[in-house]
């Protein structure tokens, strides 16, 4: 208890001396190496990508509302779902998950002044932005954008079957964002390993930072494989190699192996940061520490380790990698994921839950992720995967998962937005947005589960006149409209709340270091730091008499 006596350690300069002299306005944005501005650029760009990808989704859903929709042609439809998937996975979910909020929050959570390599960080962002523009510019070429699905299976993605610049721009854009991800991974690892404030041991790091560390390691293991694969694909298309073509003695399935060796860790590269966001939000709004903190960290590590050995569950129907090993490893992932869900519930248990928009989004995340997780268990079993693979059941499964991530991302924006901008978003509009998004997600996914079981394959621009299929598609479109409206509500909220409700330094009675500094934080984040003796230094400083309890320990209620 001695550390409570002198909880404030002075760190860096005093307020008056820390004015940052440099360019302002657009020049500041172009030349900055400040992790907060880069992180904000990342966030704004990736949310813009969410909106673009969402618009593609709405067109797709309107096309499917009737069996022979004439909104788009067959060719345009193939471009639309390819770019919908690509934009959402490569340009929104990933960069938002490890480049946006983490860029801003991770250094502050560990008491660091910036990322370890600020200029590399800026390079990451500019590569990412260039990648976005490159990939999307495919729409302006004569042959249209890439149209072979976001997984680009060989040999459909070769020069013969997918000629045109759109496919090359897709490969180029993905290479650029891939490198940006690798550099961000390096940066996060270095920052978390070397720039922690005194007292911030690894097991005092907030779970969000922990998850980002594990994510960064996964990025370093997985993304180079994708980069290599893309270069092989490009060589096949232009330099006459035959790595993925039967004619030259190549193996088309090799592409699937390479792609999913990146692709499955990628699922967790996307998911772990959002798990982290939710693990920050739920404790703060329940006024309790994370239940089973260490179990949570080990669960994250286990998920990451297992995720490297399950890629072939995307390929059971190829018949070429049908090994029990992959089924077993995939089923095993349910265990650490289950631990996380029980820990989130345990955190709320006997808490004092404040239903702010951020908390509602986080609870919405847990429920939606539970549905996506349970349906994922079926797909780990090859006999069940055989007849659901490439049907709408799979589409519904991963949309449950990624829509959970959108809910988690929104939780993060509502939770950390005040820290980043200094202003709180309107809670009423926020709650309207939550209900539209949460109910819309379920209305959107449930019919798609049934569609898959009733035999509708994915990626069909038109389908047979089957009234059952059509009604389910109509309901799914209704859900998609609700999700679209929720995005409109979010945009309205940002515009309406613009500089309206000042947040103060610690609006939610937060636990971690970012709530100890000002909103927005000063140039190098801190004027002073509290003593760090747990993963909740700000809480310990504000509530020295309410520290986390060991197992079996109880508070002396009438002390």
């Amino acid at each position, binding site marked *: 208890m001695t550390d409570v006596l002198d909880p404030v350690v002075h760190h860096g300069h005093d307020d008056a001396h820390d004015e940052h002299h440099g360019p302002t306005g657009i020049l500041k944005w172009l030349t900055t190496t400040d992790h907060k501005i880069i992180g904000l650029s990342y966030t704004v760009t990736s949310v813009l990508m969410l909106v673009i990808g969402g618009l593609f989704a709405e067109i797709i859903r309107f096309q499917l509302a009737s069996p022979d929709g004439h909104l788009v042609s067959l060719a345009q439809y193939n471009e639309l779902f390819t770019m919908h998937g690509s934009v959402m996975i490569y340009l929104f979910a990933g960069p938002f998950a490890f480049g946006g909020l983490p860029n801003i929050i991770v250094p502050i959570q560990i008491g660091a002044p910036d990322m370890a390599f600020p200029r590399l960080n800026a390079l990451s962002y500019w590569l990412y932005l260039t990648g976005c523009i490159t990939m999307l510019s495919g729409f302006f070429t004569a042959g249209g954008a890439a149209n072979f699905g976001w997984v680009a299976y060989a040999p459909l993605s070769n020069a013969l079957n997918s000629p045109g610049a759109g496919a090359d721009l897709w490969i180029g854009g993905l290479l650029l964002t891939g490198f940006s991800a690798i550099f961000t991974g390096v940066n996060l690892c270095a920052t978390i390993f070397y720039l922690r404030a005194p007292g911030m041991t690894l097991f005092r790091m907030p779970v969000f930072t922990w998850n980002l560390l594990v994510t960064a390691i996964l990025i370093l293991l997985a993304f180079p494989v994708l980069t290599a694969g893309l270069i092989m694909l490009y060589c096949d298309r232009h330099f006459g190699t035959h790595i993925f073509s039967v004619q030259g003695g190549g193996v088309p399935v090799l592409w699937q192996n390479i792609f999913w060796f990146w692709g499955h860790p990628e699922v967790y590269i996307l998911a772990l940061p959002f798990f982290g966001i939710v693990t920050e939000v739920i404790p703060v709004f329940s006024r309790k520490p994370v239940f*089973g903190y260490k179990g949570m960290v080990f669960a994250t590590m286990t998920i990451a380790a297992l995720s490297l050995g399950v890629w072939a569950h995307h390929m059971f129907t190829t018949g070429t990698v049908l090994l029990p090993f992959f*089924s077993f490893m995939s089923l095993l992932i349910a265990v650490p994921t289950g631990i996380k869900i029980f820990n989130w519930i345990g955190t*709320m248990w006997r808490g004092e839950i404040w239903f702010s928009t951020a908390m509602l989004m986080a609870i919405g995340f847990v429920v939606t992720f539970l549905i996506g997780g349970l349906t994922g268990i079926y797909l780990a079993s090859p*006999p*069940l995967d055989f007849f659901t693979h*490439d049907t709408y059941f799979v589409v519904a499964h991963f949309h449950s998962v990624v829509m959970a991530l959108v809910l988690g991302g929104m939780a993060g924006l509502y939770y950390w937005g005040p820290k980043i901008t200094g202003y709180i978003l309107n809670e009423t509009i926020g709650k309207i947005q939550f209900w539209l998004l949460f109910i819309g997600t379920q209305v959107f996914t449930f019919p798609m589960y049934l569609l898959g079981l009733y035999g509708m394959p994915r990626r069909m621009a038109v389908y047979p006149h089957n009234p059952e299929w059509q009604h389910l598609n109509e309901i799914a479109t209704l859900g998609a409209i609700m999700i679209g409206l929720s995005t409109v509500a979010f945009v309205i909220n940002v515009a309406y709340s613009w500089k309206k409700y000042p947040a103060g330094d610690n609006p939610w009675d937060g636990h971690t270091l970012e709530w100890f500094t000002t909103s927005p934080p000063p140039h190098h984040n801190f004027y002073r730091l509290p003593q760090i003796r747990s993963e909740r230094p700000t809480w310990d400083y504000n509530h020295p008499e309410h520290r986390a309890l060991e197992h079996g320990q109880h508070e002396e209620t009438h002390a």
Partner: protein
Amino acid sequence: MTKVLTVDTPALPPQGAANRPRGWRRFRRFVALPLAALALSGCTLPKFGVTKGDTTSSVSVFHLWQWFSVGAAIIGAFVLVLIVWAVLRYRRKGDNIPEQTQYHLPLEVIYTVVPLLIVFVLFAATMVVENKEVANPTNNVAVNVNAFQWGWKFSYPASDVVVVGETTQTPTMVIPVNTNIHVQLTSTDVVHGFYVKDFNFSRFALPGVNNVFTLRPTQTGVFFGQCTQLCGLYHSLMFFKVRVVSQSDFKNWLAKNRNVALYNASTKITDQQLSTLVATKYTGTIGEH
């Protein structure tokens, strides 16, 4: 008074070894026996959106689906109840700070070990069904299925019958009932998916790979099939049908069409038309089976 209560009130917790046999009997009566009965009569379970299908494998896959669904429903309901309870019961009422509980080791061990056991069970059930499904028993009829952009070619090597069709003229694969159908699946160009909903089965047609599996249809009738893997512009129009006929009908059909190429399993076509139809961008694989 107290003694009587201890003996007669079932609400009191069991008191050690003496009560255990009775607990077991009760468990057997109320939990184990009904579960076993349920297990033996899998058809009484809800279908969870899937049908039994019309092959021998499709039935065991269907039962596996049911049991996975029962598990998912129970676990999902349990977790949802916990979430809803926590959300309703622990909403913030004042400015209290609750007890800062962070660990409960026994609980954490339980929710690690129990899911682990469930995973072992699911895996074991999966392997039983999968091994049956992918086994290749003695085969009576061989059919070579070749997928191409955007159609299907079904050839019967034993009798030189070929059925072919593309987008506008859906081809039909004719097979006999209650027979092991040995399918060799390949693709001429890109990856396609051979999927028959009523067989609860699909398999990729890969260029350069001979994918082999066995179907044993149990019902006669016409079943709808479709390509599941994106294969280019007309992916959504790449249908086929499977017509399961009696064994004698199948023999007659083969005899009638010996050495003949059929368009859509009905009209005869010339070799010239056939080769135009199956636009072989890559030479070699067509017609070599």
